[in-house]
């Protein structure tokens, strides 16, 4: 039993070794932290043999903002707002995860109106997140038009949500005990209009990208992730479902009002980049179905529970709550010592665990395939680093 603590420098020196044969030369390439395809400040140290990737070592910490430490000095109401800045493309779902944990711990009952509105907003944001991912995937593979299409439709949905929420990206809409504000009187009407607008657009997406032969060539049979590897490497969300494991918290452990909605969980077959692509595009359709079903039946009630103190105190103990964001399971772990501030706050972020599937996916493949495979993981770097 030995414990050896190494450093990145040692690792690279060790791995570069003394292989000096004339026909092959292995070398290291740094990808990131400033690279247009890593979607932020992810750094990958790639060990290459020609164009083949032999090793892919992710180096993190270029946006580690110490959210868990800051949360230990904040009350629960304030903790919620830091989570928007983690996975900013699923900000409402992040808010909801913390709110859910605090509500379960403090025994706050929220009415079905609040739950329904939260579910609708979570699904709308899932659509929004996938729209952006779809555009950026196209851009990563060298096509600029999908980006314009994706952003165009994202703005339409953004307007609908902004009317109620008041913010464009970090929405801060859900808080423990309810919502920041009631839905705008125009909301139901405008969401219906949006769905009517977006359904044909999704078919247009299929014409433009899904059925495009170049995209198919670059995604099919690239970055294959077997279901066993996906489970062992901690993948959740569309990455896991792309590999053929039909696991979705919305279905298997329903929260909110997902049990009232009728929807399907799209599942891939062989787990290549194409399956993950298809799962996300299909999820947008399913999310629209969920929203449509819930929209006409928003129950009456308040948008905030009464008798709420901003300094919520939680009984001593440990609380774990999780929900399905656009990228996988977000877990919130709270250790309380009866104060209004958490003793320990931990976030199980979906991206952190999905990232490690990258190496088994692209080992031995071309460096160009890495871009497509990484794009199909849909990483948000601040969520990895927290």
């Amino acid at each position: 039993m030995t414990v050896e603590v190494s450093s990145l420098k040692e690792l690279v020196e060790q791995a570069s070794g003394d292989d000096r044969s004339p026909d092959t030369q292995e070398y290291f390439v740094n990808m990131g932290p400033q690279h247009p395809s890593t979607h932020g400040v992810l750094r990958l140290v790639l060990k290459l043999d020609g164009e083949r990737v032999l090793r892919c070592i992710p180096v993190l910490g270029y946006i580690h903002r110490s959210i868990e430490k800051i949360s230990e000095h904040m009350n629960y109401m304030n903790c919620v707002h830091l989570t928007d800045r983690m996975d900013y493309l699923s900000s409402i779902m992040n808010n909801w995860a913390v709110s859910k944990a605090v509500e379960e711990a403090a025994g706050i009952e929220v009415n079905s109106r609040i739950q329904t509105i939260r579910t609708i907003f979570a699904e709308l944001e899932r659509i929004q997140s996938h729209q952006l991912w779809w555009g950026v995937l196209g851009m990563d593979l060298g096509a600029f038009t999908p980006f314009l299409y994706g952003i165009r439709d994202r703005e339409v949905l953004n307007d609908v949500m902004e009317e109620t929420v008041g913010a464009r990206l970090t929405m801060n809409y859900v808080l423990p005990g309810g919502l920041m504000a009631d839905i705008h009187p125009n909301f139901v009407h405008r969401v219906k209009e949006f769905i009517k607008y977006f359904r044909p657009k999704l078919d247009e997406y299929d014409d433009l990208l899904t059925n495009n032969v170049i995209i198919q060539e670059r995604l099919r049979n690239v970055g294959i992730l077997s279901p066993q590897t996906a489970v062992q490497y901690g993948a959740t969300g569309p990455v896991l479902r792309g590999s053929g494991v039909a696991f979705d918290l919305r279905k298997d452990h329903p929260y909110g009002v997902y049990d009232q909605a009728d929807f399907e969980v799209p599942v891939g077959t062989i787990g290549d980049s194409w399956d993950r692509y298809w799962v996300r595009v299909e999820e947008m359709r399913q999310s629209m179905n969920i929203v449509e079903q819930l929209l006409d039946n928003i129950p009456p009630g308040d948008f905030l529970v009464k008798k709420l103190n901003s300094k919520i105190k939680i009984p001593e103990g440990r609380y774990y709550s999780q929900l399905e964001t656009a990228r996988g399971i977000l877990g919130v772990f709270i250790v309380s010592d009866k104060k209004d501030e958490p003793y320990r706050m931990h976030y199980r972020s979906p991206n952190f665990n999905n990232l490690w599937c990258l190496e088994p996916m692209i080992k031995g493949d071309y460096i160009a395939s890495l871009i497509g495979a990484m794009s199909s993981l849909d990483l948000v770097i601040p969520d990895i680093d927290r």
Partner: protein
Amino acid sequence: MEREALQAAVCELDSTVSPLDANADRAAVIVEASALPAIVRRLRDQPQFAFAQLLDHVAVDWIDRGQFELIYQLYSFKHKHFLSVSVFVPREDPRVPTLCRVHPVAEWQEREVYDLFGVLYDDHPDLRRLFLEDDWVGFPLRKDYQDDFMLDRPR
């Protein structure tokens, strides 16, 4: 399996496993550090448990008791149940065997805990800092971490 039944079934696995009732929502057990990999492997392989995925690994610094608590959250896709496995290690010499051989994702989850808490994992293939620079001094999520850089919130 129901929460209580699962907890009891896991405790019958070995004499080193005992129940823990701090969690409100899920079955939880305490395992002795030395027996951890064997227990988790049995939890993964035995069909009545089938805990296939290590969802999360968290450390808690119980500074008053002089202990670190290491929590492993397991999930079974087959039976759709959760289990939390806790290991208590002394704060002065925090050492625990690695779970990399059982659940490969533990490699990075353990690196995160090493980075922020300084828990050493025996037999870990690549134990180094994850978020912070290699030359960082101290382990910032420990409760007694001091730093010239950090600012306290004005009260």
